[in-house]
């Protein structure tokens, strides 16, 4: 449903920005910024695909190109079988766009009037506009507030209306750009439930997010993006294998059990032991999956029963691949 081949986008700095770049000297950054660099991606029909990456990685640039808001400077992208550069109008009829934040709605008119407006813009047949608007308002839980001006809506309500607006044209492909940004946990949970429903309907969804738990909860596959390139594309369920092919064992030691740590690290089945951020907690990396039962038996015999096993999480893979940059962008 989405086919991206060698997609690239270079921005050229202009005016003061370009002057500043030139003054910085020949070795400093030039006036070109590579936002996307030869990106290849294939998202089959019905898949929910997550695009993850730090700020400035190129996630939004990718969505802007796929949603026909931005032209690529190289490569090709097809959405629902149509080229985003040469067949933008065909693409626009088949996609819905939802982005996070307060913007993008007419706040002086009601939720229902917003949907009718956007239905008209998406050339929805006049005979179905009313019915579809009502259905969507019910679906996103805004039916009771449908005839109130949007200016009085909370961020969560606005976001649900954004989703309804994105669906008004009954799109085959839905782009969600950080859709839960700034939403409270309950609103986020409701929003994710709605996305699950859309996924069950077989729609193709491309979602960009910083939120690892969101990606794990919603996405069939994820792509990690950094510096304009896709680092890896893997199924969400198995991406942890990139760091370890088998479960690791996390244990929490009481103070009196601390001396056991060196003995534990010396076991032939243990590859290494890493300290975790919680006091007394360590992560045991075994040499193989077969070694796990042996180590678990040893731990229980030693009286260590605060333990759990698990594969590396998406967040760990992300930190491993992207690197822990702290607040650096």
């Amino acid at each position: 449903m989405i086919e991206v081949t060698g997609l690239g986008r270079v921005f050229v700095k202009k005016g003061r920005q370009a002057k500043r770049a030139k003054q910085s000297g020949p070795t400093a950054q030039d006036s070109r910024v590579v936002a996307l660099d030869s990106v290849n991606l294939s998202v089959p029909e019905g898949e929910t695909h997550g695009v993850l990456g730090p700020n400035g990685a190129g996630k939004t640039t990718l969505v802007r190109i796929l949603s026909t808001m931005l032209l690529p400077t190289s490569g090709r992208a097809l959405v629902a079988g149509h080229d985003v550069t040469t067949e933008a109008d065909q693409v626009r009829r088949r996609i819905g766009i939802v982005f996070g934040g307060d913007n993008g709605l007419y706040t002086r008119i009601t939720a229902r009037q917003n949907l009718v407006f956007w239905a008209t813009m998406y050339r929805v047949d006049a005979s179905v506009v009313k019915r579809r608007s009502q259905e969507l308002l019910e679906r996103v839980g805004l039916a009771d507030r449908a005839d109130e001006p949007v200016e009085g809506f909370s961020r969560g309500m606005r976001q649900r209306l954004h989703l309804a607006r994105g669906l008004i044209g009954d799109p085959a492909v839905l782009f969600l750009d950080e859709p839960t940004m700034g939403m409270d946990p309950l609103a986020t949970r409701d929003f994710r439930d709605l996305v699950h429903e859309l996924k069950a309907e077989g729609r193709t969804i491309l979602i960009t997010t910083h939120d690892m738990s969101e990606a794990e909860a919603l996405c069939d596959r994820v792509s990690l993006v950094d510096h304009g390139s896709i680092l890896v594309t893997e199924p969400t369920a198995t991406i942890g294998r990139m760091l370890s092919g088998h479960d690791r064992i996390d244990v929490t030691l009481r103070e009196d059990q601390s001396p056991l740590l060196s003995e534990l690290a010396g076991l032939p089945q243990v590859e290494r032991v890493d300290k975790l951020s919680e006091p007394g907690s360590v992560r045991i990396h075994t040499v193989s999956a077969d070694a796990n039962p042996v180590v678990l038996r040893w731990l229980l015999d030693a009286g260590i029963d605060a333990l759990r096993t698990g594969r590396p999480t998406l967040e760990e893979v992300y930190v491993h691949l992207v690197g822990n940059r702290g607040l650096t962008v």
Partner: protein
Amino acid sequence: MMVKQVIGQAAFVGFAEFKHVYTPKTWLTGWMLRLVSQVVFFGLVGKMAGDRITAEYVLLGNAVTVIAIEATLVITTASLERYQGTYPMLVVSPTNMGLVYLGRGLHWVLAGLGSSALVFALVWALFRPDWNWRVAVFALPCLIVIGLGAYVYGAILAACSLRHYKFRWVYLNFGFMVLMTFCGTNVPRSFWPAPIEWATQVLPLSHGLTAMRTLAAAGPLSDVLGQLGLEVCVAALWAALTLLFFERIASKGRRDGSLNFTS
């Protein structure tokens, strides 16, 4: 059919927003006072500089120009579009944004019609001009045509202001100053050098104002209708340009990356 719906929906949003632009008090004590002051000022200048005919010429010109000024305020609607982040969403919808803008700011034409009519009434009451009675009867259709022409002209400037957001007020002031200066508001178009006079033929207001002056001077109705017909043609030309301009602005935005989800 879809064209009608798009323009209708866009106009609906505009009218909903307009309710929040003024209260009756701010409209009367702010906007109307400003317009009346402008018309009276030029009227008095005309009276001091010339004779009664000159004063009436200036008063008529300024009273009619009010609707042209107000119609170009569609530029402020475009600014609002950008501020609330609906601009990029319109660009990536399957509908030409130019078509949307043929309706999006129509409330300014209606507001201008009200302002212009009120200014006319005040001018008539205060200055007692020697205008033919037909002005009172035919002013409304003439003003509507002039307002629509100025509106589509303003819509093009609105498209430009979407691209050069920092200069939105420059576009607005430049837009109506051009009309006020060259289209016969205070001085006849023949006052200007021939190339400028020729250029005013394709500017809104020029022919509509001539039609109004012909009415005021009890000129032949056929001349009035002829000038109004030309004003309609000019409006159609600017409307076509509006459609092209918005397409072009959207294409440029896609190319240089100036369109964003939050812009």
